[in-house]
């Protein structure tokens, strides 16, 4: 077997890397060659450092918060029984259906100075708004909270899978040596699950880095906001693209740190005992604490904001016209985009299975697309469109939009697939090959069945992500293809939050189906 050099097997992934990476590359290239001038000097002198520091702070806080919410929850739900466990095991994925910007609107309204929480404090005490301290959502921790509360399910899903699939033998050995409770989690469970958890966390952080909607609404000056501002206010898309490079660099370093850490700590399950660890009953006091905390998390990250949005819609008798066509285009674009990104992710994963360098390259390029804000990819698409001499209509527009979906989201498909692949014992692969299974044969008879659980997770995550996607859809959709996200955004920019609520809730509703399917699959693997 030749190492890699010019092997035929490396052609599809190389082509795909080019396809996925092109929009980001074009945008950044244009930024580097055509940017500059007075605006860039101004940003360099006055804004670049604050933008970057704010972004790093938001990412660190959001990362810690997601870790703190998701990992213990996944551990307790995987290994213990307590009241409501079955419901929590799937319900904790619900917040994934909530777009970050919608979460920001809802919590800003709930926590705002004129919102229900603060109003009731004032009514009860007779104070004025200046007489007391109240946590300010319009702050770096506030933004980190909003992003973490919609993105922690990524970490939860991967941690759940890791805890559930860990060898019962390992845990039993640890238990027999007297390690229980917290020690079992910290010394045995967590180290085994770390690669998976970091995979989920780096996905969530790249998604957080690319956020614009929530940060803009909360007035936090992240790089995402700076990028849009240098385009909107200064009218210099090239400067925006240049600034995007800083963001990709920051997100990329998070990604590489995670990968290095994974590489060192990666543990492979070689035990043939695939039995899931048996769950034990939590003692009553701990059981209550568990039930209460997960109820609270669900309330904060899903039910309270959804209920508030519903109330806003009812209170102001909001109406929104012609929502059905929006649902249709959202679902059609979501499905097409999912298929495209999924195929790309699958090719990436399988064709780079035996080639470390190529695999790292592929994942890095996919990650760059994922961490770049949608506007930057959209800009890249427009730069490419200019070269083609076409109008942004009909199939050309759909083609570009799907291309950008693939470029942006392939990473969200690669990571779950890769995680599944990495958890499989290497000897399965070798066994298949020694039995003569190669190429297509191996793909169909060995790889597909083994990857199926990860594939389902990847597909569903992709669909929900594309459903929520806003900037690229807004820029590239053909005439008459408004999506739910586009309409929600249109109402929200006009400060009609109550009206924005209806399409926003429909996004949540449309995302709920796949999310429930994903939860169901997770519970099912657990039982087998």
């Amino acid at each position, binding site marked *: 077997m030749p190492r890699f050099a010019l092997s035929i097997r490396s052609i599809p992934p190389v082509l795909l890397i080019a396809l996925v990476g092109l929009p980001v590359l074009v945008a950044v290239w244009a930024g580097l060659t055509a940017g500059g001038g007075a605006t860039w000097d*101004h940003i360099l002198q*006055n804004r670049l450092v604050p933008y970057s520091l704010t972004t790093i702070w938001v990412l660190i806080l959001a990362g810690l918060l997601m870790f703190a919410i998701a990992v213990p929850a996944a551990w307790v739900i995987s290994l213990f029984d307590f009241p409501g466990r079955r419901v929590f095991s799937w319900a904790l994925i619900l917040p994934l259906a909530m777009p970050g910007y919608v979460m920001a609107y809802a919590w800003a309204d709930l926590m705002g*100075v004129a919102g229900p929480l603060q109003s009731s404090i004032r009514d009860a005490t007779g104070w*004025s708004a200046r007489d007391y301290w109240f946590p300010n959502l319009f702050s770096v921790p506030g933004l980190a909270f909003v992003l973490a509360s919609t993105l922690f399910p990524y970490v939860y899903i991967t941690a759940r899978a890791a805890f559930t699939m860990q060898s019962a033998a390992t845990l039993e050995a640890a238990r027999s040596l007297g390690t229980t409770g917290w020690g079992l989690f910290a010394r045995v469970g967590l180290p085994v699950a770390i690669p998976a958890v970091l995979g989920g966390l780096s996905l969530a952080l790249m998604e957080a880095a690319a956020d614009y909607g929530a940060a803009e609404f909360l007035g936090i000056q992240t790089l995402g906001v700076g990028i849009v501002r240098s385009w909107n*206010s200064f*009218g210099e898309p090239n400067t925006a693209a240049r600034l995007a490079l800083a963001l990709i660099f920051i997100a990329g370093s998070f990604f590489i740190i995670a990968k290095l850490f994974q590489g060192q700590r990666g543990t492979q399950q070689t035990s043939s005992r695939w039995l899931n660890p048996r769950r034990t009953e939590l003692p009553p006091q701990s059981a209550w604490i568990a039930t209460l905390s997960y109820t609270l998390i669900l309330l904060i990250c899903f039910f309270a904001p959804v209920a508030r949005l519903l109330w806003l819609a009812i209170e102001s008798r909001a109406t929104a016209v012609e929502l059905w066509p929006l649902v249709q285009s959202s679902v059609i674009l979501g499905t097409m985009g999912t298929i495209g990104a999924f195929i790309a992710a699958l090719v990436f994963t399988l064709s780079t299975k035996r080639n470390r360098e190529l695999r790292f390259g592929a994942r890095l390029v996919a990650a760059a697309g994922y961490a770049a804000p949608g506007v930057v990819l959209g800009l890249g698409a*427009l730069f490419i469109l200019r070269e083609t001499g076409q109008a942004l209509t009909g199939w050309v527009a759909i083609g570009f939009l799907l291309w950008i979906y693939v470029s942006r989201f392939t990473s969200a498909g690669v990571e779950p697939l890769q995680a599944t692949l990495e958890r499989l014992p290497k000897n399965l692969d070798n066994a298949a090959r020694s039995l003569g299974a190669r190429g297509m044969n191996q793909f169909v008879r060995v790889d597909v069945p083994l990857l199926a659980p990860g594939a389902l997770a990847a597909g569903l995550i992709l669909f929900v992500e594309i459903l929520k996607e806003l900037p690229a859809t807004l820029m590239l959709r053909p005439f008459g293809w408004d999506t739910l996200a586009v309409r929600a955004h249109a109402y929200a920019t006009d400060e009609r939050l109550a009206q924005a609520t209806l399409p926003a809730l429909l996004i949540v509703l449309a995302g709920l189906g796949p999310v429930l399917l994903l939860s169901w699959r997770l519970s099912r693997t657990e039982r087998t």
Partner: protein
Amino acid sequence: MQDSNQVPEIEAQCPVANVSQLCQNANMIQRTRIFASLSLLVGAVAACSNPAETADAPEAAEATPTLTLYSSRHYDSDKALFAMFEEQAGVKINVREASADQLIETMKAEADMSPADVIITADAGSLWRFQDAGLTQPLLSETLTEVVPENYREPDGHWYGMARRLRGIAYDPARWNADELATWDTLASEDKAGEICVRSSSNIYNLSLMGELIHRYGSEAAGEWATSIVGNMARNPQGGDTDQIRAIAAGECSIAIVNHYYWVRLGASAAETDQQVAASTSFLVPEFTEGSGSHVNITGAAVTVTADNPVLAETFLAFLLSETGQSYLTTETKELPLLDTTALPDGVEAVPAFVASDVNLGVYGENQAEAQRLFDIAGWN
């Protein structure tokens, strides 16, 4: 696209000269009622572009001319208005809604192939941007020129105002008299410390206001003004205009820099809490200095350089300036109609009378980047 390829045939059947002739005749006959001519113009094009009347061949149904709008406004009432024009003029309207800057980049990328015929934006600065990028064409229309006051249109006809929006001050009447807030300068004074709520500086309405300040006083003075405002802020810029007005009602600040229609909409809201917010606040339209007039912004429209049927585009603009157009543009949005003859939308009568500044609105766009730079330096997030 198929549809637009068919347009020239329609044009051939409906000679341009005829339409403007019709229009001019109407003008001469009824000078006092401009709108008659507008509706005639609409009717004329409607008559000759309606496939049913121009061609008997069954395939003519496919030849419905298309008018493509690139709009940065997003209102349901706009959709209803466009549907009405489709019916009246027998055309098919395509709309691409996105932010003005995204539309500019899209048009640049599409170049000669762009299907865009008309641009609609909710800010004069954006119109200037389109013009600056060479994406608009001068349209010297007597009809439009007669209706649209001079400072609300580009001198060469690159763009025309369609509705007016005021940036003003919502305030707590228990705390301030209107004359204590009569000019924008008053917000910079020390007695306003800790009293001002305003949204982020990258908002286009803040940039346009700053654009006029720069035009009037120069960069240095305008920058000093921004620094003083930052010093007087009650909190970091956050949320939208509506949130600033709510913050007054909640007592967090007593002055908010907002557009008039957000305040009007709160009063017209179905939610009781919103009505209470509006009732507990007042609104005024400050001047720059006494007698200078007030900062007015517009919703405006332009005909693109790629428009393959400028006559149809002009007809559409005229339609927006008709009584129907004006009423649909402003009823839901609570903007001020451009025409004084159109009835004010419900609730807008509460906005005090004002005199518009005579600055041409193009300066907002020209000064936009400088405005953002000054805001950044002043620390106005």
